[in-house]
Each structure stands twice: as C-alpha cells, then as structure tokens.
C-alpha cells in the first residue's frame, strides 16, 4: 500500500513538473514571437479593409454568381470578426462602421497602405498599429473548404511589422449520399441566424474561427487594466460626499455628475 502511495505521489509530482515546464515554454515562446509588440505596446489597433486576391468565377450561370457572392460574404465576415479577439485582449479597436468611415477618407488602397508610411494615422487618429488582412485564395478539396490568409500588424509610429502570419486553414465536411455537404449544427445555426446558404455559412465560420485562433494569442494591450478601470468610472458617473458625524457614524450622499460640477 505504501509503495502504491509513493508511486501515486511521484506521478502527481511528474505531472506538475510537466505542466509547469509547458506553461514556462509557452510564455517564453509568446514573448519571443511577439517581442516587437511587447516593445512597442500598442493600445489602439485599426483593422484595414480586407485585400482580397482570391479568384472569382466568370459568370455564366446562377451557380457562378452564387459562388462569387458566397466568397464576397466570407471576405466581409473575415473583416467583421477580426475586431472581437483584439478587443478581448484589451486593445481599442474601432468597430466595422467606424472602420468603414475611416477607410472612406483614405485615398490609398490597402496594398499601398501596407507598404507606405503610416505616421499620419498615429498623429491624426491616434492609432498605434494597423492590422492588414490579405485573403490570398479559396480552395475546395472536395471534402472541405480551404482558405489562405495573411495577417500583418504594422506599427504606425516605427513602421515595423509587429506580427506576420500566413495561415492556410481547412474546414472539413462530410458528404451525404447525394455528395452534398452535410450541415454541421453550428454551421446550420449560423445559416439560420444570418439567412444565408450552407456553403456561405461554412466559409464564414471558417474565417471566423481562423481570426479567433490567430488573433487571440496576442499579448494584452498596454492599457488593458487601465481601460477596465476607466470603463468602470465612465459607467458610474456618480460622486459621493461623506460626512463623518461626531459619533463617527458615516453619512453618505450620492451626487450626480452634473450636481457635483
């Protein structure tokens, strides 16, 4: 019995050592991989409009136009879902409508913007880094959708590339007896809630998961903690007046911001 107990405790200790080693490796790797982000510590990231290099079909039938529309929708979804993982990491990211308004004031195309000086974004708009997403190609392997996307995060102050990732993602599906893709419940839910066809839903979910996977691992923003405090203060526009009585009982009077002013 005693031997069994020792064995168990050895196992537990070994597992703990492995876990600590794994956690340690992950953090060093992250620090090495995102060293520029740690150095520059951007707090505001703007997602530039998607540069879409994927090929469209020449329209000869309704099937071709449906295919093209599906790719367009998926590209839009790639843009829409890029903000959430960044926001969750504590960065300030303008939403899709704000980004569209900012993009409308920009004369340069996405490709030009990626290679040119971005200091005006830092001075005029207070943006620290710009995320460029390039959709290179779409593929259909017969049993799944494939997409190749390039992510580049460039600093507006130094012009350095803070992150560069080229990812090829595949979403496998099963075929039914008529050789049509079978609906995964999550894809079906997406198709229902967004009123689109299954192929579009599958592509949209593929790019959404891809965004989440690639961008979730970024280090937390510089102001992540402060942002939380500021958000709390902003959502509590109240001031308190404390009156300590002679018997040391405390009387609290809540003042609205306007009255306090």
């Amino acid at each position: 019995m005693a031997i069994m107990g020792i064995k168990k405790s050895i196992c537990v200790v070994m597992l703990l050592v492995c876990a600590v080693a794994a956690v340690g490796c992950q953090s060093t790797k992250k620090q090495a991989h995102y060293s520029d982000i740690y150095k520059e510590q951007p707090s505001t990231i703007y997602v530039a409009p998607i540069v879409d290099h994927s090929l469209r079909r020449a329209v000869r039938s309704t099937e071709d136009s449906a295919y093209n529309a599906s790719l367009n929708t998926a590209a839009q979804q790639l843009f829409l879902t890029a903000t959430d993982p960044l926001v969750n990491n504590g960065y300030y990211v303008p939403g899709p409508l704000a980004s569209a308004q900012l993009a409308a004031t920009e004369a340069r195309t996405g490709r030009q913007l990626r290679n040119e000086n971005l200091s005006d974004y830092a001075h005029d708009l207070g943006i620290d880094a710009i995320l460029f997403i390039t959709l290179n190609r779409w593929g259909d392997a017969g049993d799944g959708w494939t997409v190749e996307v390039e992510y580049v995060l460039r600093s507006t102050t130094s012009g350095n590339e803070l992150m560069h990732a080229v990812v090829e993602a595949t979403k496998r599906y099963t075929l039914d007896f008529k050789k049509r893709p079978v609906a995964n419940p999550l894809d079906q839910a997406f198709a229902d809630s967004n009123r689109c066809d299954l192929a579009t839903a599958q592509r949209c979910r593929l790019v959404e998961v891809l965004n989440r996977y690639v961008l979730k691992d970024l280090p937390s923003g510089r102001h992540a903690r402060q942002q939380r405090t500021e958000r709390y203060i902003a959502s509590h526009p109240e001031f308190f007046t404390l009156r300590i009585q002679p018997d040391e009982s405390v009387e609290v009077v809540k003042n609205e911001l306007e009255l306090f002013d």
Partner: protein
Amino acid sequence: MGVKKGCYAIVIAVSMVWLLGGCSGGYKSTPRNEMFAYQNRPTYGSLYALAVAHAERLNASLAEDTLHPGLYAEYGIALAMMGHKGVACRMLNAEVAAFPESRGMVRRIKERLMPDMLADTLAGVRDSANLLQLAEWAYDSVRALQPLPYIPSVIDSTDTAWIAIQTPVDSVTGPVRLTANQKRELLEQQQQADKLRQQFVRDSIAAAKQAVQDSIAAAKQAKIDAREAAKKQRKIAQKEKEKARADARKERQKQAKKRSQKKNK
C-alpha cells in the same frame, strides 16, 4: 415501476424537444448579425435594424456596468447615417468620454458625417442634459426621418426602436429637474411629437400599401398590354403570310398561263 419508467420517458422526451428547440436557434438580432445583414444588403431597413441592435446592446452593457469599446461610436454612426445627427453627435462624444484614445478617430468621423457639429465636443455631453432638448430632438427626428421602406417588420418595430434609441441618451445625460412650466411645455411637445410620429407611421404604411397596389396594377396593365401587343403582332404576321401566299399563287397562275400560251404556239 411501469408508471415510473413512463414518467421518466416523458420527462426525457420533453427535455429533448426543449433542448432541440433551443438548439435550432433561428434569427437573433445581434449587432454582428445585423451588421452582416447590412453589409450584404445595405438598405435603410437593415441600417435601422442595426441601430436598434446596437441600442439594445448598449442598454445591456450599461446595465451590466461594462462598456464595449466602440459601441457608442457604432451606434452614433448608424444614427448619423439615418439622419439623427444631434443624438449621433452625443453618442460620439460619449465614446470619447469613455475611451479618450478614440478622440482622433471620432473627429475624423464627425468631419465626414456631421461637419457642422465639430465644435460640439465632450462638454456638450453635460450641457445637453436637458429633456426639452431631447423632446426637440424627438420632434426634429420625426421630421427628419427619411421615408421608411416597404418592409412591414420595420414599420411595426418603430415603437420599440424609439424606446431603444431614447434610453441610452437618458443614461448618458442623466436625470434633470424641471419647473412646472417646463414640464407642461415638455409634455405638450412630447404629445405633439407622438402625434406626428403616429401620423408618420400611418402615412408611411398607407404609402407602402398604395405603392404595392400601384405596382400590382401596373404589372397587370403591363401584362394586358403585352398580350394585346402580341395579338397585334400575330395578326400582322398572319396578314403578311396570307399576302405572300396570294402573291405566290398569282405568280404560279401567271407562269401556268405563259406555259399554256407557249404550248398553243
């Protein structure tokens, strides 16, 4: 035992049905879904739905005391695109108040969407804490509201949208104390605004109905015209055919005559 088993079976069946019903989802109005719809079909109706979804999300996040970055700005931009510039400006100011790093971006957006309101900055959030101004805004926005499209669901949801749009404004500006006269004036203005709004909704529904009826009548007329035109065309073609046949017959007769004359000679 049998009864117990039966009860278990019923409970399991009911819970399965409930679970499946829950899983099947259906359409959910969230800012992202509405944004998806708006990007695929940018109409006034989808923009309206997007603004309402943002307002609901903003209300929910204010209730939870957590603010999502960019939420005020998104809502403000949607409202500005719909023509409600006054309240949109207030929303953009609120975004700057909550997230000072957005100042430059908000300024650029204002330059683009409401250049006449550039001077209305952060101070305006507190100064505009006046319900009379809100009522004026309500009155102006009814007048400024563009004609709604013919989507019945949008027209039906006008009241909900109205409430949803007003609530975040109240939470930003805070409560205000009014004199009796001001209250009376406000009440009158609100009643006037309500009347105008109801009239507007009624008019827009009637206009939408009329437009649908007109389009149906026009389609019917077009069908009838097309049928008559086709009939005429057919008659003309038939006449031409008959003429051609008559000509051919005459030609044949002439040739037969010539042949008989030759034979006689």
